[in-house]
């Protein structure tokens, strides 16, 4: 797609015997982008990731990662790409720093550089104080952060994160997402997969929604929202004043006004009508308590998309049965 694509997959397919886990998917990820592979468990996200890393064979199609073919040049790919597996594991009997030292030796860093990189990476993810503690004492969130430290230490150009936030409490999740945003600011491309749509929505530049081995939708969240939910804006307003609904309805661009509660109204419009709505309330000398526009949520997009495709949902059912 773009000139600067670091991951390019075309017609990527993985089948196990008769079952197809990933079915002719094509996508490309640009440099410095945060790209989300979203979808329910078993939709083919992890299999796609493993194919990108050359950790599983590709049945059909082609993929280039930083210009390398992962099936033929896995070492070149794996030297430049960091991977955080789904529920990452470390050697429990070793300390956090020793775990990273082992990886650093496998990568082939010299000892002085190794120590410097490890110290920096642990500091970045906030584990510097726990460097010499055994990983067996670590919480799940700390393990995930240690996994990110490994990617930082590696100096990876692409970070592939499989379900980085699953099983984390909200605080740990926001910490983790903060580190992931940090990747982007350093020009590291991030590919992350998740089944928790609303959590990752905030960090992804573009997303691909997976469904039974295919990419159902791809684009930025706003684009998808326009495409699936219909280009409309939804504005919620809470104010008092008689006849407000009627006055709001005649604002140009507003298609409907619904009463959602006492003093609460919801406007459907083809543009952002917040300024006009506020002006109307003030003109009526009403008191404006709340005025907000709904961002399109991935959850809504996803649900709406599959509601609109009953035949596909049926297909999903039969495939799972098979």
């Amino acid at each position: 797609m773009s000139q600067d694509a670091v991951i390019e997959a075309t017609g990527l397919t993985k089948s196990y015997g008769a079952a197809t886990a990933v079915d002719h998917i094509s996508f490309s990820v640009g440099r410095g982008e945060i790209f989300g592979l979203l979808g329910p468990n078993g939709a083919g996200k992890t299999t796609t990731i493993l194919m990108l890393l050359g950790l599983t064979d590709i049945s059909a199609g082609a993929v280039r990662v930083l210009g390398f073919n992962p099936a033929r040049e896995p070492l070149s790919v794996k030297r430049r790409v960091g991977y955080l597996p789904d529920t990452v594991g470390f050697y429990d009997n070793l300390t956090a720093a020793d775990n990273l030292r082992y990886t650093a030796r496998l990568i082939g860093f010299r000892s002085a550089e190794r120590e410097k990189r490890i110290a920096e990476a642990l500091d970045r993810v906030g584990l510097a104080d726990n460097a010499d503690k055994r990983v067996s004492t670590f919480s799940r969130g700390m393990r995930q952060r240690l996994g990110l430290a490994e990617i930082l230490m590696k100096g990876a150009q692409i970070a592939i994160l499989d379900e980085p936030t699953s099983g984390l409490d909200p605080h740990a999740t926001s910490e983790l997402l903060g580190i992931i945003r940090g990747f982007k600011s350093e020009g590291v491309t991030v590919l992350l997969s998740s089944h928790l749509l609303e959590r990752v929505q905030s960090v992804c530049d573009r997303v691909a929604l997976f469904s039974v081995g295919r990419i159902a939708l791809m684009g930025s969240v706003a684009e998808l929202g326009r495409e699936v939910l219909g280009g409309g804006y939804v504005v919620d307003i809470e104010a008092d004043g008689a006849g407000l609904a009627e006055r709001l309805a005649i604002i140009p661009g507003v298609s409907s006004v619904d009463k959602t509660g006492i003093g609460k109204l919801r406007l459907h419009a083809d543009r952002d009508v917040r300024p006009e709505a506020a002006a109307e309330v003030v003109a009526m000398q009403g008191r404006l308590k709340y005025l907000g526009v709904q961002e399109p949520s991935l959850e809504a997009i996803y649900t709406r998309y599959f509601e609109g495709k009953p035949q596909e949902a049926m297909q999903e059912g039969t495939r799972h049965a098979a």
Partner: protein
Amino acid sequence: MQREGSAFSGLGVVMLKELSDHLTSWRMVIMEWLVVLTAVGVVYTGIQQIREVSAEDPFLLLRLFTRAREGLPSLVSVLSFLVPLVAIGIGFDSVNSERNQRTLSRILAQPIYRDALLFGKFLAGIVTLTIMLVALWLMVVGLGILMLGIPPGAEEVARATAMLGVTIIYAGIWLALALLFSIVFRSATTAALAALGLWLFLTMIWPMLSPYVAALFVSDTVSSSSDLLNQLDLIQSFARLSPGTLYGEIVGVLLDPTIRSTQQPLLASLGLVLLQPGSIPGAPLPLLQSLLIVWPQTVAMIAAVIMLFVIGYVTFQRQEVRA
């Protein structure tokens, strides 16, 4: 098309890490003490026996390995029993523990091939076993020299060293088997039980069972001495499917210069004596001749190590990384 880079990059790193894991683990410490204490105990009691019986023996040092006090097993039989146990103990969870700790995909995402991981684990196991066996060997020889007060001859030392080498290969068979099971079975417990089960079968049950299996292929009539030898050959071939039997044969010949054929102990148990033209019964063979006798058995053991490792290697290469 050839894959890029070396299959062995990272091999040394994996090996050193596994080696330090082995040497610092409690499991290892327990097994080492088990072997060392048993062996030293056996040798110590054996020495008392040797001092009483065979002061005139020219191969006194070798008797340390093969003789034992009445009712106790000799050092060689203790080794043939304990070495598999230790090798299985080292290897049974080498690959499946990486899966269960979920470290496998993270390690394989580093710029190494799977080959390096497997080779490294196997080599680390062999080095660990070698360290243990060499220490044990030195202890036995040192104890023997101290307590018997007779310095060993060059040939005795050479024979004892050859025996050490064969013991390491024997350990390699069981290590490769344990590694294979650790690849095939996702659960470490299952792998350990399967390996121990096979070990029990091969060392306990198969030696009892194999003559009956062989009898199915043997004709009832024995008309000449060559017929008898052929029959013995067949019976032995079946018995040799057990690595313990193979090991016992090799070590028996290496440590007793008077044994001229691996069939000799079997013939002796039938009350027969093997007479070879131009040889004096009971006279010691030179080392090279003894080595020649057991060379086929030794090659068979090495082949078993390679075969088991290759089966494991191919299985591992074909496995999916994800759990």
